[in-house]
């Protein structure tokens, strides 16, 4: 009896199946290339994917409400370029203050998205598409299409340089806050409520507009912080930084079991989704697949995962129906 319930728990929970996929993936790659699971390599994986992992949490909030945000990497570029320019022209060198400014820029940009989507009743993809143009363009205009080089950001990049614990601390901190917030706070549960059924949430007294605006503002805040973090990790600021990476963030959420239609998805699932994406990207060159084919493999995996989701859902629905008929 107990055995069955454990088995059911494993097959029934999305997170458990993700862990199994992760372990199998790691074993295969480890056999093919024994250096894979070394501490330095694992550290590298987290450092190189910290941006995607952090932004995936914001995207989780937005996907839970049934929306989408494709302006995130443009917000990242704008806040990152702001940090880069402040350093380049010797206006500010305090690491903490620079992060604060980047976060504030992101918060404003995200809040703007949220207000237009909730109050203006604009489709999320269209609104964020417009801002994707605007923030990226402003990043170019602000810097006059120039870079902030490694020398310009020298002191600041100590926070994210190889061997510094900065990115890891930030990553763990953000994940802990979100885990608690989404699971136990009123606000977190309200996001789930709005995503499952906005009308029911409204009737039960939740201010849907405010929850929507906050979700986009949180996404913006994280994107802003990631702008500064990106400058620190890569020791440069370019207007085209992280171009197109919003798709990676969305893909990480989708693989982690977050539903595109809202209401379903967890912080733990998102984490494993992002980790699986990161390991695949790292493993492809190790097992001899040309890095040029990486995008194709990534796309195929996303497609396979969403199709698999639909098929399992169909099978489950069918089984439930049969059980009821009996």
């Amino acid at each position, binding site marked *: 009896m107990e055995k069955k319930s454990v088995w059911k728990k494993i097959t029934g929970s999305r997170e458990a199946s993700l862990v199994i996929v992760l372990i199998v993936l790691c074993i295969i790659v480890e056999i093919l290339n024994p250096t894979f699971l070394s501490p330095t390599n694992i550290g590298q994986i987290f450092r190189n994917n910290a941006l995607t992992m952090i932004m995936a949490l914001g995207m989780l909030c937005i996907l839970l409400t049934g929306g*989408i945000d494709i302006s995130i990497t443009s917000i990242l570029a704008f806040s990152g370029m702001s940090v880069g320019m402040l350093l380049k022209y010797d206006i500010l060198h305090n690491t903490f203050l620079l992060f604060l400014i980047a976060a504030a820029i992101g918060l404003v940009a995200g809040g703007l998205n949220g207000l*237009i989507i909730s*109050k*203006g*009743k*604009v*489709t999320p*993809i*269209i*609104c964020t*598409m*417009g*801002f*994707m*143009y*605007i923030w*990226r*363009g*402003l990043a*170019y*205009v602000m810097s006059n*299409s120039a870079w902030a080089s490694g020398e310009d950001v020298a002191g600041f990049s100590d926070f994210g340089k190889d061997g510094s614990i900065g990115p890891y601390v930030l990553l763990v901190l953000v994940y802990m806050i979100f885990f608690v917030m989404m699971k136990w706070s009123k606000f977190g549960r309200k996001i789930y409520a709005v995503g499952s059924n906005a009308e029911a949430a409204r009737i039960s007294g939740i201010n849907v507009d405010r929850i929507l605006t906050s979700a986009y503002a949180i996404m913006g805040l994280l994107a802003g912080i990631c702008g500064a973090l990106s400058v620190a990790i890569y020791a440069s600021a370019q*207007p085209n930084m992280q171009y197109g990476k919003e*798709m990676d963030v*969305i*893909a990480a959420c*989708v693989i982690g079991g977050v539903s*595109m*239609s809202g209401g379903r998805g967890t912080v733990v699932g998102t984490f494993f989704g992002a980790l699986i994406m990161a390991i695949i990207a790292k493993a492809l060159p190790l097992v001899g697949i*040309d890095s*040029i*084919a*990486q*995008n*194709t*493999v*990534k*796309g*195929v995996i*996303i*497609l396979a995962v*969403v*199709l698999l989701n*639909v098929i399992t*859902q169909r099978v489950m629905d069918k089984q439930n129906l049969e059980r009821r008929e009996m």
Partner: protein
Amino acid sequence: MAGKSGRTIQAVPQNSAKKMIFSWEGALVVLFIALNIFNMIISPSYNITNILREMPKYLAEIFMLFGMAYILVLGDIDISVGSIVCLSATLACVASNAGLPMVLVIAVCLLVGTACGFINGIILTRFTELPAMIVTLATQIIFRGIAEILLGSGGSVSLKDTSGFNALAMKIGPVPLVFFLVVIAAVIFTVILAKTTFGRKLYAIGSNSTAAYYAGVKVQKVRLIVFTVTGLLAGLCALFLTSALFGANTTTGQGFEMDVIAMAVFGGIATTGGKGNLVGGIISAFIIVLLRIALGQINLNPQLILVIIGALLIIAVLIPGINNAIQAKRKMKSA
């Protein structure tokens, strides 16, 4: 498609002069004229000859507007069109460099586009639970990824023999061939959308797909056709883009989906489906093209042009919402 009930199929527009001026299309025509005056003031070299010379490289994109407009009327979205352009253009260049005759090169380009569109369509119609957004997001990465593999480490390919593509870039008098093709396609697609049963079916599905299904519309078949045709149009775009650029690289067509959606939305086509027509879309397409030409002539930072287009897009989608809010307030006051 929950939450879409209660919306009715758009009524046949009345032909009164007042309605025409105050309609969205009327406003766009006024904007179009204002823009031309604005362009003439800021750029001394803004005249017919220069416009016609610089137009071809911007015109190819407009082909995809027609397909995207149909998809948006259906209430779907396709963000893979830019990648389809990339893959089609790449394969056309590869085919041309392999020594195939021009007719076959054209066939390859169009067939690849059609096949990509068909793949989108078949996935979306077999798995109707999936939103078009996520499927075309995945195919967007895949199509461009395949092009990246084909292009190899260099990341670009240029035509060895440009004579065939030069023929495509020919001009009839001062006007480029592609302009005529865009106009012909515009007329055909506008008439189909506005005047045929197929067009009305699109509005029916976009307004309420369940109701349309029970009324006997083959919803999935229509969706498959529309996505496939959009792929074909992306192939056509790739063909004329290659004839203007004489090559392809990994960034070919990047961001085209955003441009085309911006044109459609700015033209008054609602992304929620069932609303809008192509006349507005076509006017706004030319507004964006002419704005690009003029701002390019005065050497404005091309990224600033993107900021302007982005701002226009958001203003355009905000106007109906603001309008509704004002009317709701007025109703509350009178009640």
